[in-house]
């Protein structure tokens, strides 16, 4: 069983296997399930992700009315063709937003690694699909690769906003996505780890400050930026760029930052954007009573 990214990469390199394959084999060992069962279970999760993207792209609205409809706006914008940053990135962003808008509307999603960060991995996956034309099996493998890196973060740091801030949620999700993109694009296990490190480095310190305690503002847009971050970091790693700080040390730094973060900035709706005048106003409007 791998305990950190270094061991994960070492296993993949020494056995000449993909990260996804290492994760599949470990899952079989740990749970006693057959390969077919493990793959079928992940395929079901993939289907849930696909349905959430499709639903969000058509447009949803949350109960509070705070979020919804941005994925549609972005899709229309892409169709016009006058975008600046690039089609695949914007497609990833809109699909990440779509998923997280469905989540905010209490729709059915697959937590990756959490519900608040559920947009990034599927958002990038379904955007990259347009570019790389993967098989269904490769799409399932994408999720195992993402899962392998998330597994390391969850066991060595945290994936919960209440424990580690948004860096632990969207930060982890983005790192997981970046690594999975690299593998799908034909990168090496080492490059997967570099992509994860580069992504997470740039999400360190991200606080969890949900307005009115809802998983909407700024969560939906953080999923958007997490997807963009993952795409850029994946390209950087594929270009051969490496992180000066090894991936495991970045994860450890994230853990320590999370521990030293004040409670007001860890999913308590007491600080950050939640505590802005507008944040408080929205909270009062949604719940009828202001909570100080």
């Amino acid at each position, binding site marked *: 069983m791998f305990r950190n990214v270094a061991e994960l990469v070492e296993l993949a390199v020494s056995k000449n296997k993909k990260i996804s394959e290492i*994760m599949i084999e470990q899952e079989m060992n740990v749970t006693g399930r057959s390969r077919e069962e493990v793959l079928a279970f992940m395929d079901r999760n993939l289907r849930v992700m696909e349905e959430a993207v499709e639903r969000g792209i058509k447009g949803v609205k949350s109960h509070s009315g705070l979020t919804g409809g941005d994925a549609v706006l972005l899709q229309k914008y892409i169709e016009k063709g006058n975008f600046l940053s690039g089609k695949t990135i914007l497609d990833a962003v809109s699909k990440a937003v779509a998923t997280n808008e469905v989540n905010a509307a*209490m729709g059915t999603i697959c937590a990756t690694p959490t519900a*608040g960060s559920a947009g990034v991995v599927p958002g990038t996956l379904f955007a990259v699909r347009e570019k790389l034309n993967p098989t269904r099996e490769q799409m399932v493998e994408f999720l195992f690769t993402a*899962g392998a890196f998330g*597994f390391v973060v969850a066991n060595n740091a945290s994936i919960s906003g*209440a424990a580690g801030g948004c860096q632990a949620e969207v930060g982890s999700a983005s790192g997981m996505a970046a690594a999975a993109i690299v593998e799908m694009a034909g990168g090496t296990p080492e490059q997967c780890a570099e992509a994860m490190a580069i992504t997470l480095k740039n999400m360190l310190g991200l606080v969890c400050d949900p307005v009115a305690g809802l998983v909407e503002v700024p969560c939906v847009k953080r999923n958007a930026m997490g997807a963009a971050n993952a795409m850029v970091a994946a390209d950087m790693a594929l270009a051969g760029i490496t992180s000066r700080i090894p991936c495991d040390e970045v994860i450890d730094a994230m853990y320590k930052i999370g521990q030293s973060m004040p409670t007001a900035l860890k999913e308590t709706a007491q600080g950050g954007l939640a505590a802005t005048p507008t944040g408080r106003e929205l909270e009062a409007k949604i719940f009828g009573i202001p909570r100080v």
Partner: protein
Amino acid sequence: MKYRSVFDIIGPVMIGPSSSHTAGAARIGRVARSLFGREPKWANISLYGSFAKTYKGHGTDVAIIGGLLDFDTDDVRIINAIDIAKERGIKLRFIEEEAVTDHPNTARVIIGDDKGELELVGISIGGGKIEITELNGFELKLSGNHPAILVVHNDRFGAIASVSNVLAKYEINIGHMEVARKEKGKLALMTIEVDQNIENKILQELEELPNILKVTKIVD
């Protein structure tokens, strides 16, 4: 290792918006329901830390009640769980606690009816994964992700061995086990997580052993 399966990371499939505050909360409620063995008539839910501050926005309240109604994390009825519970005549009370707990997402669930009561403390550690830390005053550690049983027994020599012997006979492997007691020689509790599902006839056989008082399957 707190997380053992990749599906703790890529999953669960669930109703939004928060894996820790909605899916995890639903699981805490469902474990309580499963232990209680029937639908309660009333429920007092104390919420601590982040749960207390943000439960309305995260649907933590509806999720815990959904769990008490035996709904899974991806059951869309969770959204209307409080209304459904009220229709069924269940009295609900939510308490926002100020006390600081070891984990920021902590809930204390006290449920009951005219026949009995149950008190349970659960924490939601992220990504929908939970641990049960206290049951009727007993401290325990239970992930909720493997088949598990609880055995209430008298604190006597041989009681633990007799239970593990029965499990061995049916080729059931113990993954995690804890024994807790309040006082030497009095009531004790075994928490046993296993790799295989335990059939009811095995539970019955366990219950018939000397000094074993109650055996409950808490996770299938």
